[in-house]
Each structure stands twice: as C-alpha cells, then as structure tokens.
C-alpha cells in the first residue's frame, strides 16, 4: 500500500511539473502584459516600467520560472499580480464555493444518472426508455450557460424560489448558501447526467443478461433486489471510471457556470487570472485543479477495489 501511495505521489509531482511548465510556456507566447492590462490606455512608458519592476516582470523569464518552481517546492505559490495578495489565500477563499458546487453537481449527476439509466434499462424499448434517450440527447446538446440562464428565468424570476446568483457565504447559514448552489449544480450536471445515464443504461443492460442475474431472478427475488442489489453493483464499474474523469469536465464547466451565476469560485478566479495575465494566479489555480483531478482519480481507483475485489492487488 505504501509503495502504491509513493508511486501515486511521484506521479502527481510529475503531472504538476508538466502542467506548470506548459502553463508557463503558453504565457510566454500569449500576447499581453499584466502591467499594461492594469494601466490600460492611460499608461505612460515610465509608469509601465515602474509597475513591471514592482511586479517583478523585469526579470528574465528563466529566473522567474525557477523562482516560481522553488516557491512551489516550499509550498509557496507566490503573489497574485492583479490582487497583490498571496495566491494561496485567493484560491483558498474560493474552495468553499467550488468544492461544494462540484460535490453537489457530482451528487446530482450520480443520482440523476442512476435513476434515469436504471429506469431506461429496466423498461428497455418502452416509452420511458425512449423518453430518457431523447432527454439525454437534449442534455448533451444544450450548453451550460444557456441552461443556467433558463434556470434563472424560471426559478428566480417567473417562479421565484431560488436566488438568481451570487453567493452569501457559508456564514449566512448552510441553507441559504446551499440554495445559491442548487441551480448552478443542476446547470453543471445536466450534460454529465446525459452522458452517465446512457452509460449506466448500457452497462446495466449488459449485466442483466449475465448468468448470476438470471439465477437471482430464478430464486424469485423481487425486481428491486435483482436490479439494485445484484446487477447495479457490477454495472456501475464502467460508469464509475467515467465519473472520475467527469471531474475534469465538471471543473471546466464551472468556469462557465460560475460566470453565469456570478459565483466566486475557482473557475471565475481562473478566468480573471487569464484575462489579466496574472501568471502566478493562473499557475496556482491550475495546479490546484490538477491536484484535485489526480486525487479524485486515485480515490476512484481505490473504490474499484471496494466494488470488485478482483481488481485489487493480490495479497
């Protein structure tokens, strides 16, 4: 187990190094200058030079990169150029929005796809199945920002039960904070539910033809026990892999959804960081996202073993 973890950690470090270097290189070819973006069309040459020096942009590229790398090794992600605060603080402030949003969207995805997928598989070829297939087709086609707008119009304006956006913070109470995440989570999860429920349906249909399921039927077990107790456990392994991979898509989607719902999350921070050419902030945010994705995928691997002990290491 220790060896596994060590290998994982080494893999993580390698991934981060590659990600950090790519981001750094991309920023070297991307036109635009953080000092110029701060000063806009009012900049004098002197003011620009002064600000560049203040932000440390006057040093050579290689020196800046090595400095940044050294900082990361010590756990210091540097200071944001646009907010002039430690990157760690800025990112940490966003986690209470993005993590619950991602978890909620994951929960909606899991619940929604199991419900739709199982229903469609069990009623294969019937009207319900067709309805689910149509619905998921639609879910795939509709962009998240558009769905977000529609959800706001329906649930905040026409039938005002949920807030139109913003985030009051968890100090305003868990109920209030959660109410601000419900619509964004649905907008974010819609496309994932569409993918996943098709996967659950297909996988379950496959499992339902297996011998052990036939045995279960033959024992006279009720449908609920056969489907949920026996078949679904095995049918869920392929979708689980997918679920782990969905996190990346989820975090990418949160960039858009956080914008529509003006949620102060990691995605919106990243967008700001890119448009203001705030390299340390981009690096910090991207590293964090990379850590999250690698961690979740490792957790998914461990979950496989739980679901199917045959996958685990031989004792």
């Amino acid at each position: 187990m220790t060896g596994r973890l060590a290998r994982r950690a080494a893999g993580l470090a390698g991934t981060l190094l590659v990600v950090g270097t790519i981001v750094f290189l991309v920023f070297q070819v991307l036109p635009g200058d953080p000092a110029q973006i701060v000063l806009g069309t009012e900049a004098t040459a002197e003011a620009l030079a002064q600000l560049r020096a203040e932000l440390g942009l006057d040093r050579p590229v290689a020196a800046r990169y090595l400095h940044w790398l050294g900082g990361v090794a010590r756990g210091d992600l540097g200071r944001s150029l646009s907010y002039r605060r430690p990157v760690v603080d800025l990112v940490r402030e966003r986690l209470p929005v993005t993590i619950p949003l991602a978890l909620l969207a994951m929960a909606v995805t899991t619940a929604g796809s199991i419900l739709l997928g199982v229903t469609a598989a069990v009623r294969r070829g019937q009207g319900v199945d067709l309805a689910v297939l149509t619905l998921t087709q639609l879910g795939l086609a509709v962009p998240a920002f558009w769905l977000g707008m529609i959800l706001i119009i329906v649930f905040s304006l026409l039938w005002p039960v949920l807030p139109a956006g913003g985030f009051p913070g968890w100090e305003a109470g868990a109920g209030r904070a959660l109410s601000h995440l419900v619509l964004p989570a649905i907008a974010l999860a819609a496309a994932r539910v569409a993918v996943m429920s098709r996967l659950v349906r297909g996988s379950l249909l496959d499992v339902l033809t297996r011998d052990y399921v036939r045995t279960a039927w033959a024992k006279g077990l009720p449908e609920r026990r056969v489907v949920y107790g026996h078949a679904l456990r095995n049918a869920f392994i392929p979708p689980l892999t997918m679920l782990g991979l969905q996190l990346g898509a989820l975090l990418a989607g949160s960039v858009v959804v956080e914008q529509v719902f003006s949620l102060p999350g990691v995605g919106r921070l990243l967008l700001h960081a890119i448009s203001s050419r705030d390299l340390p902030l981009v690096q910090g945010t991207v590293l964090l996202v990379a850590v999250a994705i690698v961690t979740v995928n490792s957790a998914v691997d461990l979950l496989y073993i739980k679901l199917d002990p045959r996958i685990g290491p031989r004792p």
Partner: protein
Amino acid sequence: MSYRMTAAILAATLLASLLAGCRPGPALPHADPSPVRGGTLVVAVPADPAGLDPHKAVAAATFQITRNLYETLVQVDPNGELESALALEWEVSPDGLAYTFYLRPGARFHDGRAADAAAVKASFERLLDPATGHPRRKDYAVIGELVIAGEHTLVIRLAEYSAAFLSNLAMGWAAVVPVDAADLFNQPVGSGPFRFVEWRPQQHVKLARFEEYGVDELPYLDEVVFQIIPDGAVQLRHLQAGQVDVITVLPPETADQVRSTPGLKVLSAPMNAVQLLAINNARPPFDDLRVRRALSHLVDRQAVVDGAVWGYGTVIGSHMPPVSPYYEDLTGAYEHDPARARQLLGEAGYPDGFEVTIHLPDAYELHRRAGEIIADQLRAGGIRARLEVVEWGRWLKEIYEQRQYHLTVIGHTGRLDPDPFLNRYVSKSRENYMNYDNPVYDQLIAEAAACTDLARRHQLYSLLQKTLTGDAVAVWLQAPHHVMGAAETVRGWRFFPIDVYDLSTVHKTR
C-alpha cells in the same frame, strides 16, 4: 464647464487684483427634500477594482469606489464645476503659481488620525515619489513645493504655470491618503464619507458609513455593497429579482423593458467619453487623406448610435464629447454620402474599394456592435471589411502598443482638462496609436497647454479639434451615455463628468 471654475480663477489671476478664493462649501443638490437615513445600498459593478490605492490605479473600476473612501482637495460636481472637498476654500496667487488650500478642520482619516496640512503634504509627496509608481505622476510634476502654512492650511507652489493644475487635483488619483497605512491596495484608509469594511475579489467590496465624516451629516446610507457581476444581462436578472438596488451596466436594448417595469427605473446621462473608429494613419491605404475622408463619408454615425446603443449616445465629429466646455460641433464636416466616398476612393486609386480587417476588443460589446454596423456600411464604398474580435490583453499589446492594425473601434474617457485628452495625437506621444503626424498640431497643442489667456486657450482647442477632423484622423462616432438601472426606491444618484460614483448623497425611500 469644469473650466468655469478654473476660468474664474484665471480671469481673476490675470486681473491681478482679485483673488478667486473663498468658494462656497459643497452645494449638494438633494433629489428629495427629506432624505431617509440608513439602510444598505447594493450596487452591481462589472469588475473588481484594480486595487483600492488611488495612487496606483487608472481604472474607472477603482475610482468609482474610492471616491467614497478618500477625498481629493477639490472635487468636481455634476456640472463639471469644481467644489470644495477636503479643502473647504482655496486661493490662487496673482501669478497663478501658488495655491493656498484651507482644509476642513476636524477632518480625520478612518483610523482616527488627523487629515491635516501635514497629512496632505505627505500624501502629495507619496504621489510624486517615483518609487510609488503613480501612473499619472507627470500630471503633477509641475508641483514645486509643498508648504505647511498652518495646521489646516497648505500652500502648493508650482514650478511653472499650469492651466490644468486645479482640475487635476479633482481627479481620483490625486486623493489624499495616510502615507503610513500598511496596505492601501487591499486595506484602504481615507477621509471620505464611507470607511472600508472588506473586499472579497469577484464577490463584493463593502463600505460602511464613516460616523465622523462631518460634512452636512452625510452620508445617508449605513452601508454600501459593490457587488461584482460581470455580465449586463445577469446584472439585470439580479435587479429584477430585487437582489441589487442599482446596476451600472444595463444592456441598452433592455432599457425600455426596465422603464416599463413597476418599481424599476433607468438612470441615464451623457458620458464624458468618445467612441471612434481608429485608423492607422501610417498604413496604406489609410496614409491617403482621401481614403480616410471616404471612410468618414461612408459611416452613418446616427445609425451606429441607433443600432449599437439603441439611441443612448450623441453623434460627434471630433475627439471631444459635447459635455466638455471645449466641445466644438463638427458633426457636419462629413455628411453620410457614399457617392462622395466612392468618388474620393476613385481619386485615390481604389475605384473598386479594397479589403481590410477591423479589430474589435472582446471586452466591449459597445465597440463590437459598432464595428459590425460599420463593416456593413463600408460595403457601400466597395470596402470589404473582415471583423476580428481580439481578446483585451492582446488588443492592448498588438493594436494599442505595437500598432499592428488598420482599423479598430475603441473608446476614450475624457478628463476635466482637454490637454491630456487631445495629447494622444501628438506625433511623438506613446499613446498616439493612430500614428498621426502633423507638426502644426504638435505646435498648437504645446501652445494651448502653456496658454494663460483663457479665450485664446479656447480658440486653440477648437482649432485642434478642427485640425483632427480636417485630417480625418479617425471616424469619431459618438459620445455614449451612461445607461443604468435602479430600483424606484433609490434617490439622489448623480452622474459626474469623470467616471466616479458618489454615494454620499444617495438614499433609499424605504
């Protein structure tokens, strides 16, 4: 109009017998005879401030907020006149080189320290210190000496005469700050009507009433929250849902909808800004005056105003908005006349027109829309315009700084003084991204800046505008209007000729 005050002072200066001092205290027009005290006002703004240290910013997003946190010595009123702020009164010496400011006794910073002559002196020293990195330091380089003439009296002596000096003091970046505050960028401390509470990036900036402000028992509100909501359509949803009181970006096409909604209203006023189709005068075919004039004849500016901002703009004919006292009406210089344009293009050797790219900055819907309309209008002259939307950081780099473009649509915000506004057309200016090169213009603008005769100064700025229009340096489109939405309960909102929001006089009816 801001110059009326400067004008008065200068006239007096020249007469050499009168002192233009003892200005009246702030005359605050109250929209409501009995304003309600207390309450929280939520204002939706599109972006974070670029920090809250006024000496390190040029972004409107900063000064819209800092106007409420800090005070300048003098400030501009909605009509463009200068009025008292931290300085209750001021005097100008007969030679126009010494300004004596009488500060408000008892004025304090939010941390309790006195905002007295010594503090103001220290603040200007910070502004002038190159290490501070003040982006507009050169506007204040005329300051020769700062003399404390009493606890609440400060004399600023100028090294040379400057017509723009007093109005430059009203700019947000000349605000008085306590110099030993640790981190004004993130923890601002001023002497303004509101004190800083917190700034959560991309969420909000919160301010609370400063109990010891001591001016006319202002402000009315207990708390102001600037809520950061990037998109105009999303801001509108928040207004409709009652989550915010004022939205500062109202998509103009929704203005009628807002106006007809019970409980909501539209706030609008002409801006001190110009929108233009900028032309790279150094690049063929636009190095030919006939081609530039043809462009001016091809663009139907009223159609741009109607199509891009639904009429919320005023057509202009040169680089000056109508709210400026120096405005010269040149809207008739180039009638919309495609036939004349084709004739000019023919003379220039382009009887069949040509192909060109118009670069549009992605951050500004106003400019993108105008660009789309213009591209269509240019077709009447055979000019086939391709539109390329570029990301803002790239626009600043490649178009503005490196000048790699033919045509682009952009806007410029006006100042109180015309010099910094028209200065970008000086051939050697770093801001001259249109590559205009006219020695006569360079000479005239230098003369205007140094001119102490007000009538002559007016004449010169008028001549400068005519020169630009005559050379068709750009196609000046419009002075856009502020278009905002607000709850009916919001009273006392005022618009200023510089881009600031003054919430000290704003109150809510309920």
